């Protein structure tokens, strides 16, 4: 809104955030590449950006990368969606119904704080190596940020707004849908930002333990056969996906809730 009135600034000033951010990434890879000129590393144990780049091109052109990503996306979507559908209502009820909150808070905190990854082998034993087992691991890792953020969001609901809706004849259901849920929504999106990272860990862990395809399986298989260029190419792909998802959610937080910055 203020852009119209803003004084003209030079290109580097206007985009300095993006420029400086990209610069450090470029320098990082340049330094990685350059160090091979000085130190004769064994290429069996470490790769360099130029090899990784050509490995990435191979994986893309052969279609392997896309196929692995498509395979991994399925349990990711199931697990993550289940985390939203179960975590959000559970967190809201825990926040609004004081007794439910008191009862479940310790149990949920224990689960959230523990390294649930340790349970992955157990899940594989029960559910096998299919989509269900992987989705379950992803669900367990990503559900807690939704529960706890919704829970915190409900506790921050403006009591005045509750009184407003009550005084105008609103029912309990109206309170949930017209006050609590809209108030909590920004907290849920913030929770999603944390949950995405954990869900991606879930994808990899699930496929490390038991899988015959998928991006996590590809990473572990390329590692086993010392194809480090392609292994790093897969890791970098995961990093880029994590960054795109996280930034996308952050962008949603900024644009979808303008009133959050208003008061």
């Amino acid at each position: 809104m203020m852009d119209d009135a803003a004084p003209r600034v030079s290109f580097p000033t206007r985009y300095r955030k993006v420029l400086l951010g990209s610069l450090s990434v470029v320098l990082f890879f340049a330094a990685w590449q350059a160090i091979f000129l000085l130190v004769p590393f064994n290429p069996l144990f470490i790769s360099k950006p130029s090899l990784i780049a050509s490995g990435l091109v191979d994986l893309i052109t052969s279609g392997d990368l896309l196929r692995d990503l498509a395979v991994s996306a399925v349990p990711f979507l199931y697990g993550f969606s289940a985390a939203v559908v179960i975590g959000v209502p559970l967190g809201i009820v825990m926040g609004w119904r004081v007794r439910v909150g008191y009862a479940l808070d310790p149990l949920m905190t224990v689960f959230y704080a523990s390294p649930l990854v340790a349970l992955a082998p157990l899940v594989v034993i029960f559910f096998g190596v299919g989509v269900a087992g992987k989705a379950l691991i992803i669900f367990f890792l990503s559900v807690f940020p939704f529960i706890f953020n919704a829970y915190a969001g409900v506790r921050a609901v403006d009591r005045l707004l509750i009184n407003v809706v009550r005084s105008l004849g609103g029912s309990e259901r109206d309170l949930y849908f017209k006050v609590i849920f809209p108030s909590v929504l920004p907290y849920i999106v913030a929770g999603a930002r944390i949950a995405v990272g954990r869900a991606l860990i879930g994808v990899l862990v699930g496929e490390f333990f038991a899988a015959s395809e998928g991006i996590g399986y590809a990473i572990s298989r390329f590692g086993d056969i010392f194809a480090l260029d392609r292994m790093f190419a897969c890791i970098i792909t995961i990093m880029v996906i994590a960054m795109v998802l996280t930034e996308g959610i952050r962008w949603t937080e900024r644009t979808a809730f303008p009133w959050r910055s208003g008061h």
Partner: protein
Amino acid sequence: MPACIEGRNVNLTFRPPNRRPVRALHGFDIDVQECEFLSIVGPSGCGKTTFLNVVLGLIKPDSGELRIRGKPISGPGTDRAMVFQEFGLLPWRTVLNNIELGLELKGVPGETRRHISRRFIHMVGLAGFEGHYPHELSGGMKQRVGLARALATDPDVLLMDEPFAALDAQTRDVMQVELLRIWQEARKTVLFVTHQIDEAIYLSDRVMVMTKRPGHAKKMFTIKLPRPRDYEMRVTREFNDLKLEIWQELKDEITV
């Protein structure tokens, strides 16, 4: 003629867990006539806001009788609506959708809702701001929305809890004039709580002074200034004498 709001010996004690109980209202009596504008002034914490919440139906008194047009109050109802000090607008709703809230909760269909809301947007002088969000409005405009939302449900009684206390002095003066205009137009019974003696005299037919906690009626003043009121009345001898008289009743109740 029966009173519009009738309170007899209303008692209320708050019992917060793990803390000492607080007696908020003790033997509170009140009669507000149809279409009367009655203000309550009293020291901070005397229970004025609590009483409004009791009339609104959000808090149940321990004992006593409270009736609106002869009907006992048993909870919130569409015959009453409150204008809140901190506005209480839903930040994710536009001006229009905020004003529609009460109608929506009553189950009024969308088309009718919009039609009614637009009428009140005009009445409070917010035409052209239908699509704005609360964070884009000034304090005075927010309270215009609060007023329109309360009026849109067509209540018999308008309860106002220090509605202009969060506004700057000039905006407050303008809003007082606006409120009187709207009150004349809408013909509502108004129960108005304020800290400001000036404001109470300027707006009201009668002003009640409350004691400190546990609050009850101390003295009632009838304001004989002619209507419509205008700003010049506030600097007349009569106005200032009244202000002094009310202040003398009030000051004994104030403990700092």
